[in-house]
């Protein structure tokens, strides 16, 4: 089978994407397929028309690749692709919309308030900060609405730190959200074909607790898989994760990030196309379930081909 692997692109997560794609291409070749790596750029449509792949493996992360844009193009070209469809991608990439969906569906997610830059510039949103701070408490988390990685995610420990954190988050997106900080254990549930895989727990070293960047470096965060949780806790977390996956309309695979606080697990976000690098959490979880990377790629590929074409927004 000819499989185009879409990678790179213009997103800030370009490097992660290239690393994911390199592994995927190797796995595809090992499976006897013909992997065609395509660094996504202006010539994407031309390349796809020229290569005529049987299926497209999307290994893009961040805006552009993970937000439904590329998926929309592939629908128009009538090419089957891996991962969630257009609508699910758009929802997952937009943390604000995703949180609204979760709220409506009764999935626990931390309280938040969302703004765009215009609200501050033209509508006097700054005057509401005090109420928001009172409602969310400190520390609070400020994040851009649509980045997939830790870029632009800031803790504000006090009122004084909020403006600077907002300016930082607004560097990445026109919309940001302020979110209640949930103290607890950081969990990631990988979902493959609607089934939850073993839970990964990220345990940051204490000194780096408020440093998001540290969490993505080997040696500064410890990962435990499967996470040491009681059986009923595991089941509860996995159930919430799969329900989130369904609620947001994901298909194929996705990773749901949660915080396990004092009471209920709280869903932070869903990664529609989780990283597949050698340090990524999704392959780690798959491995704990006895699925090696090649098998994982095979299953993701199979799910792409089974997807009904009904999601297409244009008549065929």
């Amino acid at each position, binding site marked *: 089978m000819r499989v185009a692997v879409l*990678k*790179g692109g*213009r997103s*800030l*997560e*370009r*490097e*992660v994407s*290239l690393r994911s794609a*390199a*592994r995927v291409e*190797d*796995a595809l070749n*090992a499976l006897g397929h013909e992997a065609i*790596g*395509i*660094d996504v*750029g202006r010539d994407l449509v031309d390349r796809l028309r020229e290569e005529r792949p049987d299926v497209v493996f999307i290994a893009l992360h961040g805006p552009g690749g993970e937000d439904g844009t590329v998926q929309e193009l592939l629908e128009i070209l009538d090419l089957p692709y891996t991962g969630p469809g257009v609508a699910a991608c758009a929802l997952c990439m937009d943390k604000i919309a995703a949180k609204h969906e979760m709220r409506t569906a009764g999935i626990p997610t931390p309280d938040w308030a969302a703004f765009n*830059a215009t609200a*501050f*510039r*033209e509508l006097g949103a*700054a*005057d509401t*900060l005090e109420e928001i701070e009172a409602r969310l408490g400190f520390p609070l988390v400020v994040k851009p609405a649509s980045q997939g*990685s*830790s*870029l*632009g995610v800031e803790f504000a420990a006090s009122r004084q730190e*909020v*403006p*600077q954190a*907002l*300016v*930082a*988050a*607004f*560097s*990445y997106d026109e919309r940001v959200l302020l979110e209640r900080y949930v103290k607890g254990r950081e969990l990631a549930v990988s979902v493959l074909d609607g089934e939850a895989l073993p839970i990964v727990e990220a345990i940051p070293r204490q000194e780096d607790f408020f440093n998001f*960047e540290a969490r*993505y*470096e*080997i*040696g*500064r965060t410890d*990962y435990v*898989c499967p996470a040491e949780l009681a059986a009923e806790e595991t089941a509860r977390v996995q159930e919430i994760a799969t329900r989130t996956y369904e609620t947001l309309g994901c298909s194929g695979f996705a990773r749901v990030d949660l915080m396990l606080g004092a009471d209920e697990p709280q869903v932070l976000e869903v990664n529609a196309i989780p990283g597949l690098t*050698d*340090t990524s959490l999704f*392959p*780690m979880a798959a*491995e704990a379930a006895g699925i*090696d*990377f*090649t098998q994982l790629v095979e299953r993701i590929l199979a799910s792409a081909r089974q997807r009904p074409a009904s999601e297409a927004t244009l008549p065929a």
Partner: protein
Amino acid sequence: MNGRRKLRGRISATLFAMTEPSEQEGQRRQPEGAPRRRRAHTTSRDLERYAGLFAKRTQAMRSSAMRDLMAITARPEVISLAGGLPDTSTFPAESFAAQMTRIAHESSAEALQYGPTEGFEETKACLVEVMAAEGMAPDPDDLIVTTGGQQAIDLITKTLVDPGDPVICEAPTYPGAVPTFCSYEADVHQVNTDDDGMRIDELEELIAALARAGRRPKFIYSVPSFQNPAGVTLSEQRRRRLVELAREHEVLIVEDNPYGLLRFDGEPQPTLYSLDGGDYVLYLGTLSKILSPGIRIGWVAAPPPVLEKIGLGKQAADLCTSTLSQYFVREYFGEGRWLDYVADLVTIYRDRRDAMLDALERHFPEQSIWTRPGGGLFLWATLPDYIDTTDLLAKALRENVAFVPGRSAYVDGLRGASSMRLNFSASDEDELREGIRRIGHVISEQIALYETITGEHRIGPPPDDEDDPGGEVVPMPRR
């Protein structure tokens, strides 16, 4: 590249020192018939296994989100003021062809052979000539040719530093030196700089404080002329005091001088090496900025006992510096026009610096300050402290412009958060003006946003363009 053949691969050796447009990684060509061999997959268990084998010092050698950010500055549509590249397009291709042809005809076998670890006598003669142009007269036997100035920093650190040994450098310092110091587990202390270079009073205090703790720095690393990244130059008075201090405390100075000959205005400063006579100063030179970084030719001038150890280290590292490159250097210097080429570069870079300074004046908001280098390749701009330039880079990249966030010039990765390094050697004047205009625009937007959020200076919507960001802001002095 005018359709010429160019080898593929991304320049990432010292990421922050140089990034340049690259080909798309996806298009790597494989030789016919040779299947690509790349490891099929690394499992997390593999990773754990290797993690247990890594030396402790690798923990200091880490990648970061900032590194990933910097990687996309290499896109061709980005005006990159992030690089540290000299402009090699001005080198006359015809003479390059003639020189290489002569080597192929006359010395093919020798030029393709190993060479002596310390470098050829003929190479050293050329390097002595370069040092003489800055008033130094070293014994050629005190020189060792290295694979670029970067290897010189590595070899010196390897030779002198045990884990935990104190090393002193400037704040900010050359970003490419940080990973080197860290990989030998040096205990790095940074001394602030101002318009006259390293603050020698603070240096004295630091040396005294270390002495009280029973410690002595192994060396003081300095780029005294047109410093990377700040663009500042150490004043003569401070140079004299620095050399005195080294003698008093028997501490070595590592003088890294890649830019000394790229002086646009003002009088030349005496090198630390010439002031000291070469007793306590280890001098690092390079041809990267006055000829070509691609040939990888640098050198160290040091007292014989130190040089001997460096030579042993060099032997272990790579046996010898590229023979072919050394043959090229001999040919090139043999034509006797190398100083003319430096003069050409000075003219080009001076105009570019002027264009950048002019653009900064026009487009950067008045809450920002920057240095005015008298030479070299870089200047250093500092914004209000609530702007983090790592975040700002993400916004700037959406406008297709890039710079180096200031944090990379600090060992702790925390200080320098509101500063940036701007390079003016690798872009033409129009690109520089446009690049600065775009950066100025994103800064103005962030300042206006901050002021709106804090409510201190309600000034309405931000300016659409580079015009006065407005408001009751207090102007800060510009340097």
